[in-house]
């Protein structure tokens, strides 16, 4: 089958229950189409996403990691996403300093009503990752 050759990235998506997961659902109920690359992990709040999860996923060979939460100010838990943003900023910086591909990580704010935005982010991020190619970590032995 043709699909075999074409590289379909695997992207782990941490979605907060109240905004982004609902947004992703809305994309579905609106029958929007986006690549099957996204593998959603539901968390109650984006602030539950321990940076170590992201590191593990990256080292594990995930082609991309998306963290999506409520827009700043709209967090169901008032301020969780502000901490998420700080932790993400730190992690990104660590990746950059060590020459790791921080562009395989994405932080995006997607509300429950932004089904279209979710589909857009999913599609564009997938395209971006396709350009960067397969994660080079899948076959590393000495991690």
């Amino acid at each position, binding site marked *: 089958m043709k699909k075999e050759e074409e590289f379909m990235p695997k992207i782990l998506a941490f979605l907060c229950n109240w905004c982004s997961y609902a947004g*992703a*659902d809305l994309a579905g109920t609106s029958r929007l189409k986006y690549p099957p690359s996204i593998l959603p992990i539901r968390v109650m709040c984006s602030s*539950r996403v*321990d*940076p170590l*999860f992201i590191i593990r996923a990256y080292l594990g060979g995930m082609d991309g990691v998306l963290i999506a939460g409520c827009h700043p100010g709209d967090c169901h*838990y008032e301020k969780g996403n502000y901490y998420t943003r700080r932790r993400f900023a730190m992690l990104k910086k660590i990746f950059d300093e060590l020459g790791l591909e921080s562009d395989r990580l994405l932080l995006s704010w997607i509300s429950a009503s932004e089904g279209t935005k979710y589909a857009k982010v999913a599609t564009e991020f997938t395209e971006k990752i396709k350009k960067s190619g397969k994660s080079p970590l899948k076959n590393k032995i000495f991690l």
Partner: protein
Amino acid sequence: MERKIGVYVCECGPNIAEKVDIDKVLNAVSSLEGVAVAEKYKLLCSVDGKKFLEDEIKKHGLTHLVVSACSPKQHEQTFMEVCENAGINPYLFQLANIREQCAWITEDKDEATEKAIRLTKAAIRRVRYHSSLEKKEIECNPDVLVIGGGVAGIEASLQLASSDRKIYLVEKNSSLGGLITNFEKTFPNMKPTSDIIKQKIQDIAENENIKVFTDAEVEEVIGFFGNFEVKIKKKTEENNVVEFDVGAVVLATGSASFDPKKTPGYGYGKFDDVFTALEFEKMNSSGKISLKNGKAPKSVAIIHCVGREEKGYCSEICCMYSLKFACYLKDKIPGVKVSHFYSDLCIPGKSCQKFYEKTTEKNVDFIRATDVEVIKQGDKINIKYKAENNSKNSHPVDMVILSPAIEPTSDTSRLAEITSISQSDGGFFAEEHEKLGPVSTSTDGVYIVGCAQGPKNISETIVQSEAAAGKILSSLVPGRKIEPEVKTSQISESFCIGCKTCISVCPYGAITFDETKKISVVNEVICRGCGSCTAACPSGAATLKHFTFNQLYQEIVEAVQ
């Protein structure tokens, strides 16, 4: 005990079946470790579907359930109930979303199937690490904290207090009554204020269901509707912290007035005999309206809208109490000249118009003016202003009364922070919805009444107090059960190193510090389970139930394969 996981894929009519090769999914998972049975069904959320699941669980003696169907936001609850009915803990269940986030968004059937397999496998791997959680039920606390002992607070307290509902009324000053106690009379009917307030304060004192704290400030309010923990500080006493629990909070902190020193043009603070409205009210109540030199004024200017421009809103009531001042003066000082300097008159409502006309009959001047400035000329005060016809005029008087804008009290932001509600542009507490939720706020169980929400006259204030009381009485019924979050955080005593990181990032103050053990402790009734502490804890001492490290990690590992 050996795990027996049942995996059930829902066709959801054509919704999933058309896009996902369900048999392929079943094949892929049926032989996985712990999977006792893997079946499909046309519509699991239907009555028959639920019956089918229940029977299956019993028939195969399943210990864990995985359903591949729609979004958890659709039917997680439904299937958790099925689990309960079938006698397994509802948290030993995981729902894989292969509809909204798979079947419906994927063009290609093979790809959709492949993803559905992944998501189902991940759910199976995750469910292996689930543990039973028990629902907690606590009785809601019917008591109410009322902050502010002015008209608004007093009214709310009296409306709410009853044998099965205790009211805690906290006033930062030494006595109840608030601003109004300074007024001799109230507009528009010029009835003595004491008629309104004296009796009510009396009633409060006599009501054993109302506990009054004067000279006290609220330090902390943590929790949620039906279950707030309150800490107040008494300014005057020694061991001065009092703690109690309530079910709802009413903010009735009233208002302050704009400081005319910020608009030097009006000469306040510079010249004698320039008074603010409140100063004049006090002077009037004291029985003698007089100038610095002890004589009664022959001419008085009342300047409206002081600070309106700076504040950016009309304070609604200044015009009316300014009229009231004119009446005071005319009644007490025969022949006194009174002139109002205004830019627009605000005379709302059915009774104010009459009041305005009555006042004008007392030959009071109303001068529409702009660029009003107060200067001193010899022993007289001179009002310079631009008239409607743009002519520059001046108007000498003995006394000036400034009607400054109404603004929030100084502790408004502090209390907004404590009760985690927001503030509107003017800095007043923000209502949930301008029209549909005028007394409720963004925090369930916290209500705002009176001038704390915006400038208001007394009757409007009473209306709001009664509205808030009504909302509380109808929802916070004594004996009503509330279910606190089950998926809360917990902190391992043996691994916690006491760095308080979790405490700093908890939005609800749900984590306290045990000073003797030097460790953090989660108050599970207050925790809402966001998991921020879990991610922030460096030593893995904090875990979020049902979203533990392992549960998420195993889900991820499967996805990463």
